[in-house]
């Protein structure tokens, strides 16, 4: 696919999704490119290797946005708080590790909603995420639902695992790497009672009812039990939206830097080979940094979206319906023709040329 072709598709998808977001009550927000390093540090948001840094004229280090949410929060924090705050953005995010020619610029679309905890809002956001893929014709999708507290509060209870080691354990669980997790836990002398539970969590994914009933036997504390109740409630709501057939659970999701604080979800597409939408509730950071009661949102990887629409044999809607050719001497006729066609709702472009003709672009492009 040529760069130009990609841009066209990107534009088309962006417009379509922006309209969809608006129909769910979201308004567009422009978000800043830079946030001071100190701010990231203060709110424990640093994940160094991923973040691209620049130095301003005064020698201050700034972080170029590598995750849109923090930058939305920076924009929101200076705004007067309202009851209904729902925003969407179209943004590029940047990665700081230029490893093996990986994409260092990623086009992202996303929504953020600031409100205190509500299972209806959680479900409405998830429904919007699913709809934004379905409305583009992407149907080979699967949504995995989880809750940040489930794994986190289990690990918290295990005294043998120190604060510094939590990330290591997370990484093993994230990779479903039971082999190395087992040897790590044994090295730390974690009691078998906890060890077996953590190992089980790795493979705790699949059908909602199945996983919930297994998870209930693993839930050792109130926090874990409450997180399951919340998942259950959101799932009940998603049934009402009629999208429960896409919904599964994966309680082995992890959550770097304890960023998410509630419901988390990922939507996978088989043709993309990975997740295409990622989101969740992040109350802690929206309270501290955004000065809001809570927040939930998701982001969609637009580069992947454009790629998989290709594999769906997607055809771009032609931007130009008619090309009108003519000379300046015949301006009256030509302008009349242009107005006439545009009034009918066509996209019309005038091209200066010797011959007078009108070409319908759609047929020409349909090869």
């Amino acid at each position, binding site marked *: 696919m040529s760069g130009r072709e990609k841009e066209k598709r990107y534009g088309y998808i962006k417009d379509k999704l922006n309209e969809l977001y608006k129909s769910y009550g979201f308004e567009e927000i422009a978000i800043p490119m830079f946030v001071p390093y100190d701010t990231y540090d203060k709110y424990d948001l640093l994940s160094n290797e991923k973040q691209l840094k620049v130095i301003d004229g005064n020698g201050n280090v700034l972080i170029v946005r590598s995750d849109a949410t923090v930058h939305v929060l920076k924009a929101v924090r200076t705004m007067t708080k309202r009851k209904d705050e729902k925003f969407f953005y179209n943004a590029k995010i940047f990665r700081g590790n230029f490893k093996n020619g990986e994409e260092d610029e990623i086009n992202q679309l996303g929504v953020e909603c600031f409100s205190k905890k509500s299972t209806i809002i959680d479900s409405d956001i998830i429904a919007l995420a699913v709809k934004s893929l379905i409305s583009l014709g992407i149907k080979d999708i*699967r949504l995995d639902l989880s809750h940040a507290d489930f794994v986190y509060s289990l690990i918290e209870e295990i005294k043998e695992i120190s604060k510094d080691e939590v990330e290591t354990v997370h990484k093993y669980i994230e990779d*479903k790497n039971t*082999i190395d997790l087992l040897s790590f836990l044994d090295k730390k002398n974690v009691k078998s009672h906890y060890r077996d539970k953590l190992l089980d969590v790795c493979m705790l*994914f699949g059908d909602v009812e199945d996983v919930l009933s297994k998870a209930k036997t693993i839930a050792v504390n109130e926090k874990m039990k409450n997180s399951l109740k919340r998942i259950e409630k959101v799932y009940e709501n998603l049934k009402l939206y009629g999208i429960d057939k896409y919904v599964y659970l994966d309680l082995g999701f992890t959550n770097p830097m304890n960023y998410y604080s509630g419901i988390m979800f990922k939507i996978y597409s088989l043709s*993309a080979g*990975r997740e295409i939408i990622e989101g969740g509730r992040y109350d802690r950071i929206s309270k501290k940094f955004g000065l809001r009661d809570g927040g939930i949102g998701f982001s969609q990887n637009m580069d992947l979206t454009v790629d998989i629409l290709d594999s769906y044999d997607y055809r771009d809607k032609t931007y130009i319906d008619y090309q009108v050719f003519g000379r300046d001497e015949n301006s009256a006729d030509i302008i009349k023709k242009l107005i006439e066609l545009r009034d009918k709702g066509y996209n019309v472009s005038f091209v200066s040329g010797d011959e007078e003709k009108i070409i319908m672009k759609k047929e020409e492009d349909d090869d």
Partner: protein
Amino acid sequence: MIKIALAKGRVASEAVKLFKEIGIEFSDYDMNRKLILRDSSNQVEIVLVKPSDTPIYVENGVCDCGIVGKDILLEDNPDVYRLFPLNIGKCKMCVCGFKGERIEGRKTITAASKFTNIAKNYFDSLGIKSKLIKLNGSVELAPLLNMSDVIVDIVETGTTLRENGLDVLREIEDIYSVFIVNKASLKMKHSKLKPFMNQLKKLKLGGEK
């Protein structure tokens, strides 16, 4: 259809044997130079790749799963699920060098390796500042030509080492093959993958006696 990325050569040969034990046969394996082969029942397709590329095919979802050495997982840290070990390609990641070469108490060390990330992490954990030289093969040459103090490499029998007057100085980690799965495939093709994985897992346990 399940697509599996396999490292050309020993891993692939051993894997094809394992598959045969669970009733999946690739009759034309090793008969020609085809890189993509299908089993007789059209259930499984194997893709023969360069060993270090195996996780790349799985990460990008063009293969659902793969069999890859733990050395490559440790070195490249790909974004894939690492589900269970297989009884293929067992060896050890070691620090090797001339007999008597000291490692403790050093402040700095120069090491040549194919696995520079693994080497760096290991020396970091010992608090030794390391200078690393990335080589793509015949790593043993580096200490012989006095280009490095030691090498970090996988050791199976140790014959090449001994014939060149080198020895294992430290064992870093056990290396074995791991069954990896693409993150979307594990979820979305679970009903197909699960019986296949379960049969493989059973074999692995049987073979470990």
